[in-house]
Each structure stands twice: as C-alpha cells, then as structure tokens.
C-alpha cells in the first residue's frame, strides 16, 4: 500500500525536521531572507528566543550545548546577521561545541549578484565550521538537516551551518514545493561516504597503553574538554582510582574530575596552579585524554614535560602528533577508550599490579602545601579582592550551580577559585577566547537547565560587549545572575602591559563609573546591585540567589592592581612559573 505523499513547503519542512531532531529551543533573530521560516515557527512547539544581536544567539546556543550536551540551534537571516554569527561559529569550532546555525540567503537566482543583504556565507564560514552546506532544493531539506545534526554531534563535535535561500522556503514561490520524507540513520550515514569517525580504540594500542601505565612511577592524567564531550567523567574517575594517578583538568575540562578529590591537582597551564604545572613538567608519563597540547598548557614546547612519554587519546586523528608526537596514539571516543583501558588494566592485575606511586603523590601534595593559590585580603576601605568575591560566590551558591565566564582575568580567577564537583557546571570560551561570551552563554545554559542556578562571572570589559542580551533574558524570563568584577580596566591586557611593557598602559582604562552598571541593569529589566566593601559581598550574593523571577546583575568594585597568579610568562618554559607578585621564580 503506497502512502499518499505529504506535500509541504521548504519552510515547514525545515521546522518539522528540527522538531523531529528533538530541538526544543531556537535562539534567533528574523530578517528578510529567513522570514518564511519564521512563519511556521508560530505553530511549532519549539520555543524561540528572540535575541538582541545575532552573536548572542550563537553564544546562547553554545551555552545550551555546554550545559545539556545537546546541540544548540541558532537561526538568523542573511548578510550582516550571518557575519554577526561568525564569532560564535569560530568559538564553537575551537571548543568542539555541537551547534547548528541556520542562515537565510538570497533566492538561488540572486546568488552572486550582490543582492541586498547577500554575502558569501558558505565561503566566510568554511574555515570556522565542521561543515557547511548551501541547500539549493527544498526537497533536500530533511536529508541535509539530518546530516547536519549527525555531523555536529558525532566524532569530534562542532558547529554546522546550513545556508537556506529564500525561494526554497517561501510558500509563494514554486521552488519551495517538496514532498516530505524522513531519512533513516542508515540513509544519513550512507549519504556521507567521506565521514566515518573512529570511536573504538585499537585493542593493541590500548594494551600497549595499559602496559606503559604499569611501568610509570610519575604519571599524570592530562584531561581535556574531550572528556566532557564524550560523557567520560565516570570512566575517568574509575581509571584514576584504579591506578591512583593524579589528574589535571584543563580550562576546558574543569568539572570533569572533582576538584575536592584527593587525586585532583586542578588546572595546568599559563595560569594553572604550581602543582598541576609542575607535576606535568616532572612526570614520566602524560596520559592525554581528550586534550590537545594547547600552547596555553604546554608553555614553551621544547621544554614541556621533556622526560615524559605520551599516551594520547583523541577522537580526532589530526590531534595525534599535531603538537607533540605520542608514544602510544589512540584514536577513539574518550569514554569507550577509557572503559577499554580500565578493562585492560584489570586484566593485568588491577590496582595490585600498579607500581607504588606513593612517593609521587607525596611529592605532589608537598607542592600543594608549599605553593597553594593565595592572595592578600584587602585592607578596610580598599577595593575588593576579586578572589574574595569568587570564594564567597562559590560558598554561597547552591551545589550544582553552573558558572559561565567571559575571557580575561575574571575567567582565570573563577577557574582557579571555584570548586568544581560535577561535570557540565563550567562554561567558558577556551580556544577562541571570546570576550562577551558569558552573558549569552549563561542564558543558553539556563534555558536548557531551568532548574539550576546559573551565574555568569564577567569582567567590566566583557559585560559591555554583550550586555544587551540581558534584555532578552528579562523579556523571556530567564533569571540568570551576573557578577561583574568591575576593576575599571581591560584587566588581562593591563596585566601584560604591567609585566611585559614596563607599566606603559595603553588603551586599557574603562572607568569604574561609566557606564553606571546598576542603572544599566535596571534599564534592561534586571535587578541591579552594587557592592563596594567586603561585608556587603555575602548579603548581596544571598539576595541575588533568592531572586528567581528576573535576571540580577551584581557589580563588585574590585582592585584593578590585582594580578592573576601563578603565571608562566608567554614563550617561557613551564618550569619558570611565577607563583606570586613577591614569589619570584621557583626552581
């Protein structure tokens, strides 16, 4: 019995395809070319969140994906809207965030004519997407949407952009006519013969890795964001406890391993703590799991962990040997590989068969005692120390609070001073370092996880880049909380000018009072609170946490002279880590 074909237009097909992919929310902003797709949204159960700037839509989709593990979806029009969303695309590409971006395009017949609001979206976004596709036939929409979700969420996740000419979605245009169909998983896979990500690690390599671990007396588990993408936190915990190997979690992996676990050494890298940095430097084996030897982690490459052998597990074969040649390369999904590795270690005798590493762990805990993170509390009447604000925020916020940051000093302090106990509670722009990320990312996270408290910790510089999205949050009743560490400067740039440019401060001063952040917050429909002295910090945080019907902005006036320590000066060896303003270099 043949079924009657279901005829519909491309716009309806696009929305229906998104519904069938399980999309519950689209972050977007309509415009000329995407208009026809906005009509069927009215009748769709998908929630649409109207942003105030297309960059906000992209970062919201990223924040949503970070917090939920599901792909975030953003939809905007052609031309300037497409170029406005390039930054989030690049951000998601660098940090491997699953995201679908739909852009409008001028009608197929007008492409290439410099039509109004036309730009070469595919050409512009080619190098900042995992894949992009210009759909030229309405009939192709269901298949291409399914391909996009498959690509965004499998293998190494990443952003996929679909560029949709107006005529194929406009019901008044015959080009939009199509017959509905929904391809099977097999059809989707078969339609992309060049895409076959390897998920299962090679058994021989896994055995080799298990044997190498068994011979190491100073190993470190060097854990990156891939652990979170692979939902591998439990497998990692099992591996660490089975082998009693200390763990460092990179900026992208904060929360992948509990900070209060005895084996956790915290964050390595340029602003990592002394123990995490030094343990990697002194190790005889780095077990890199979903991490990519980023320059901010390795410091000067030829002096990075010179005595260490490398086991490198990554879903992306291009990461293996890109920066540091591994002794045992394993291509595969981090969770599957770690589970196999755990089995291989058990087969070799489990915990009893591992060498005695107590001396190594003692050395690490010795460093932790000798060089903890530290700062000096401010004198009465002086500006707040940002670290103190973060300690209070950490201690007064509910368990499982999600914290998002922008980029700069506040980001590093938050990563350092927060105690991450659960995966997917930390959201930041790591690879691209996008200022202004935190507000929209927090809104996206809160949209996906409405029952959780979501704090965005922001700098005053970052806040001014994307603050308009708080109007979106207020309108849509998405009660995020923003902590501005207002030090009146582009603080990280100021820090570099202080340390490396003889305190010649060039174009970094922003003023503490202009804008007035409290008035600005209230103008956007948020509650605005200003905090200037230490005794006001806790009450303000408690009050902010109690407000659940609208966004809250708490402006903390912080000390602009405070610097982020420890620091490995750029281009220097990690062994030259500077632990504090008076600490000098430790050898």
């Amino acid at each position, binding site marked *: 019995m043949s079924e009657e074909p279901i005829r519909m237009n491309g716009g309806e097909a696009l929305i229906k395809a998104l519904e069938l992919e399980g999309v519950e929310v689209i972050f977007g902003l309509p415009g000329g070319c995407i208009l026809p797709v906005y009509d069927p949204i009215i009748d769709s159960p998908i929630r649409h969140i109207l942003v105030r700037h297309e960059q906000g839509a992209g970062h919201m989709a990223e924040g949503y994906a970070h917090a939920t593990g599901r792909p975030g979806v953003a939809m905007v029009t052609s031309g300037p809207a497409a170029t406005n969303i390039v930054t989030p695309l690049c951000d998601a590409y660098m940090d491997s965030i699953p995201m679908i971006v739909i852009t409008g395009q001028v009608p197929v017949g007008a492409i290439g004519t410099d039509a109004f609001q036309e730009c070469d979206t595919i050409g512009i976004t080619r*190098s900042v997407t*995992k894949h992009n596709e210009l759909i030229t036939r309405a009939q192709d929409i269901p298949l291409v949407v399914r391909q996009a979700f498959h690509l965004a969420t499998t293998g190494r996740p990443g952003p996929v952009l679909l560029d949709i000419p107006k005529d194929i979605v406009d019901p008044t245009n015959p080009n939009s006519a199509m017959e509905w169909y929904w391809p099977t998983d097999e059809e989707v896979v078969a339609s992309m013969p*060049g895409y076959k990500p390897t998920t299962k690690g090679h058994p021989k390599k896994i055995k080799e890795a298990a044997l190498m671990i068994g011979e190491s007396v100073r190993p470190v588990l060097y854990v990156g964001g891939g652990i979170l993408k692979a939902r591998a936190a439990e497998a990692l915990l099992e591996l660490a406890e089975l082998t009693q190997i200390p763990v460092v979690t990179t900026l992208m992996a904060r929360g992948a391993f509990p900070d209060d676990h005895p084996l956790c050494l915290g964050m390595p890298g340029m602003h990592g703590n002394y123990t995490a940095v030094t343990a990697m430097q002194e190790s005889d084996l780095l077990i890199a799991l979903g991490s990519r030897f980023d320059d901010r982690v390795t410091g000067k490459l030829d002096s990075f962990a010179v005595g260490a052998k490398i086991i490198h597990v990554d879903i992306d*074969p*291009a990461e293996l040997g*890109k920066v540091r040649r591994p002794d045992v390369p394993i291509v595969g999904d981090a969770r599957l590989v770690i589970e196999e590795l755990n089995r291989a270690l058990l087969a070799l005798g489990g915990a009893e068969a591992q060498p005695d590493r107590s001396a190594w762990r003692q050395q690490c805990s010795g460093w932790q005692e000798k060089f903890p993170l530290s700062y000096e509390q401010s004198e009465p009447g002086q500006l707040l120390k940002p670290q103190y604000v973060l300690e209070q925020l950490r201690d007064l916020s509910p368990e499982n609070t999600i914290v998002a940051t922008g980029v700069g000093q506040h980001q590093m302090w938050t990563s350092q001073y927060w105690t991450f106990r659960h995966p997917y509670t930390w959201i930041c722009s790591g690879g691209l370092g996008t200022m202004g990320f935190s507000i929209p990312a927090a809104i996206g996270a809160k949209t996906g996880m409405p029952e959780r408290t979501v704090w965005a910790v922001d700098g005053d510089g970052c806040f001014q880049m994307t603050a308009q999205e708080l109007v979106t949050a207020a309108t849509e009743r998405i009660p995020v909380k923003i902590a501005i560490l207002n030090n009146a400067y582009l603080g990280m740039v100021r820090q570099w000018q202080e340390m490396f440019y003889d305190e010649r401060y060039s174009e970094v001063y922003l003023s503490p009072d202009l804008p007035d952040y409290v008035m600005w917050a209230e103008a956007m429909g948020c509650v605005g609170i200003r905090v200037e002295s230490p005794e006001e910090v806790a009450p303000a945080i408690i009050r902010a946490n109690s407000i659940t019907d609208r966004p809250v902005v708490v402006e903390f006036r912080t000390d602009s002279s405070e610097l982020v320590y420890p620091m490995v000066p750029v281009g220097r060896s990690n062994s030259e880590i500077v632990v504090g303003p008076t600490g000098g270099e430790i050898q």
Partner: protein
Amino acid sequence: MSTASTPPTTRHHLLSVLVENKAGVLARVASLFARRGYNIYSLAVAPTDDERFSRITIVADADSAPLEQIVKQLNKLVNVIKISELDPLDSVERELMLCTVKADASSRHNVIELVSIFDGRIVDVGHGEVTLAVAEIPARLDDLEELLKPFGILIVQRTGRVALPKLDRTFTR
C-alpha cells in the same frame, strides 16, 4: 607557484584525493591548504568514471611531518572520501604541456624534430610560430622546455600532473 622549469624537489609530495563531485569541494580543499599555510605546487581535478566522485591530484610543498598533518586535516573534510600519498617511484605520472614557440621557415623543422623526439605533436601552426602538445612525465617536460628556449618560447601552459599507483606485478599462483 614556482616556475615550471624549477625541478621538483624532495619536498614535493604527490597526493591523490578522491572527493565528492559537488559544488565547492575544490574550494574547501584549496582553502584548507591556504589556511594551514601549505603551498600547492600543482593541482589537477576532473570527475572519475563514477560521476559522483572527482579525483584531485595535488603536488604539495611540505616536509613529511606537516604533510601528515595536512593529510589528516583533509581527511576531516566531509566531502573527502579517500587520500593516497603516491610515491613517485611507485606510480605512473603524466602532465600535459601546450607550448607556443617561435618557428619560422628556417627553424621549424628543428622544432618539429625535437617535438617528435619527445613523442609530442604540433597541434597548431602559424606563419612564424607553432603550438605543440606533449604528454610526459614532468621532468621530461622540463627538459623539452629547456631545449625549446633557444627558439623563443611565447607561452607555456602545463596542466599539473596526474598520477596513478603502479600495478602490482608480484607473481601469484
């Protein structure tokens, strides 16, 4: 691009890349080389016998370590099906050259003789010049170009090389 007379060095690598025959695929491949900072020495592309696919033959300038990285990055392109690095010693290569060279009545027979030595053909004749076509391995084309120079080369157009692996001649029962 280097001039055609520069002999290929050991830094040249020959990649045969099977791709989906779709709009924009060549741009993806080419922009990946540009984005990662690798130079394409020559490039030839045409559909295969199966019209769904095209084969791109790329001669790239790279040391072997960066080459591994570019191959892995190319593999990440969704439209790239398969990449083979061909060892010049284990493959057959050809490149087509069209060349217009000065050839008046006095020198024409010398040019024709040279072209026939190189198994080429004269494909167009003018009053004072001829255009010749030769399909050969790139080094032989370099030699011919060198030998034609004294006559006065007016224009050279080469296609970039195409290549296939040599057939297995191992004896099997």
